[in-house]
């Protein structure tokens, strides 16, 4: 299965799931007094899902017509990419998101910036540590102290 076909199928399935929810599940939660209204919360989604299914089917049809050469061209382009750093970064961002609250903003951010740069080939560790620390503390100071948006800086056991 080519990427084009897969994505067309994915879109069609999303639109169908969306439409199923809009047509068959949503109206059950409707308060009784709203039943007489000419427009329901599900009206607009129903319209979108109908158009969506139509667009999904036509995308799928055109992906079936796509010649083997075209998909080969795309595939060879995709094969030349370096996926490992991207996957590492996706995992790192997820860890960052989960650790941000328990470990605090300054700790997690310095770790994220330093590890990220090391993965991408930075080897001047001292410079890196200084830059990421100054940067993180600067941003934290701006957001927390100047703008007054609360950001917990340290892990719970330090801040108490």
């Amino acid at each position, binding site marked *: 299965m080519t990427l084009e076909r897969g994505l067309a199928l994915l879109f069609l399935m999303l639109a169908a799931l969306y439409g199923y929810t809009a047509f068959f599940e949503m109206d059950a939660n409707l308060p009784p007094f709203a039943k007489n209204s*000419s*427009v329901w919360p599900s009206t*607009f989604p129903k319209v979108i899902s109908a158009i969506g299914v139509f667009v999904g089917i036509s995308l799928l049809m*055109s992906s079936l017509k796509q010649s083997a050469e075209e998909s080969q061209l795309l595939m060879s382009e995709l094969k030349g990419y370096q996926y490992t750093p991207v996957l590492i970064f*996706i995992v790192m961002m997820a860890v960052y998101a989960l650790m941000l609250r328990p470990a605090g903003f300054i700790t997690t951010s310095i770790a994220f910036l330093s590890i990220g740069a090391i993965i991408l080939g930075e080897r001047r560790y001292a410079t890196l540590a200084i830059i990421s620390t100054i940067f993180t503390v600067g941003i934290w100071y701006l*957001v927390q102290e100047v703008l007054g948006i609360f950001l917990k800086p340290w892990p719970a056991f330090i801040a108490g």
Partner: protein
Amino acid sequence: MLEGILLGLQTAFSVKMLLMVIGGCLIGTFIGMLPGLGPMSIIAIMIPVAISIGDPSAALILLAGVYYGAIFGGSTSSILINAPGVAGTVATSFDGYPMARQGKAGKALTIAAISSFAGGTIGAVLLMGFAPALASVALLFHSAEYFALMVVGLSAIAAFAGNGQVMKALAMTLLGLMLATVGESALYNEPRFTYGFLNLQSGIGFITLAMAMFALPEAFYLMLDPSRSKSQSEQDSEIKDLRITKEEAKKIAPVIGRQSVLGFLIGVLPGAGATIASFLGYAVERNLVSKEEQKEFGKGSIKGLSAPETANNAACSGSFVPLLTLGIPGSGTTAILLGALLALNVTPGPRLMVDQPEIFWSVIISMYIGNLVLLVLNLPLIPYIAKILTVPRSYLIPFIMFFTLMGVYIGQNNAAELLILIGLGTMATVFRFAGYPLAPLLIGFILGPMMENNFSRSVQLFDGVSFLWERPMTGALLALAVFLVILPTLKQSIAARRERRRFTAEGD
């Protein structure tokens, strides 16, 4: 009126007021560069400061300065790292970022600054002349027309679709509309499409989606394909290329002229605002240029950069019309300004021009000064701002990602939003592999709620969908939308037919 202008000049040109404008512009520019803090949040943060000044003219001038500064700052991050922090600057990144990639970051920023300046200034002139008259026209627009206007805005997607790609662009728009309906509905506050996740109840944030569609895939692409990041020395030499040549100035002058008027007019309509103005401006200019130039759009066309920047700023001036003359805020930002005005004991409305002319006119005069200050302050700073791009790749990529994560987090204060960001960003990257345009998704997401609300209101008022053909203006706008969508396909088939005819003629 002349008396009023003189009074305004007198107020606005005092040393204190000039300092307010300069301070406001500087604060706005620097904070506006951080993705996640748009003009709305910056103004909201500055309100306590403004109120403590006490003098309503000074406070308004400060806030107006912050507003302009923030918009320019937002354009900067759109152009340099493809991270539009505000909906109004999304269209700026379409051509601004490719220009920066070609090493023309300085030039792109200069064009953005000049276009913003021209759009804002011309908008202010128009505001002075037409404010009272336009206010009454804007009242003629009902929810049915707004709905139609949103449809026209969405059909601008045709502008992003290349040959035979209209369906892909449509699919992304629909996906954006679907994502926009996640969360509580405006009607009866029913939670929709949350599938049991509590974190989806409040919907997906705009910043989250903007970062997931633009900044994250870009950072991923920089890693996937190392040849995309240029060597340092190569870029260094090109950044000095700030000046705009005479031909380029000639090229963008008509664009600026058209878009300041169009942007201003759209800005006057409450609810439409800078975002729609910038998308429409981009689409209009793309349709106006010749076929050769059309290919450049999205790849670093100076017209494509200048159009949304001009329209966006002209619309900001335009949005002051309903605020000052009717007391109706046309956008989130002007709504916050309205709050500040009320706190300062000023009630905007038809009486404002008569009762407190010095406030009305000093705000308008401060728009000129604000725009001028912005230009004078920022032009010399551009080479330094553009230096961001010479940061080596191993630093730039983690820092871009850190900025996206932080921008989303400080806006929502919710770690689950970060996971949504990562998921959507990964999905967007895969869609981009197959040539799906990502901008339509964001446009659908931004316009979706406005569109649904106006649609629902019209259906309720007319007890059905008869407004689609009963109101002439609605019908005309919808017809325009259909025309915009089929135009690329039509053009293509006409060209193909002509080609075939020539082929058969040669065959004879």
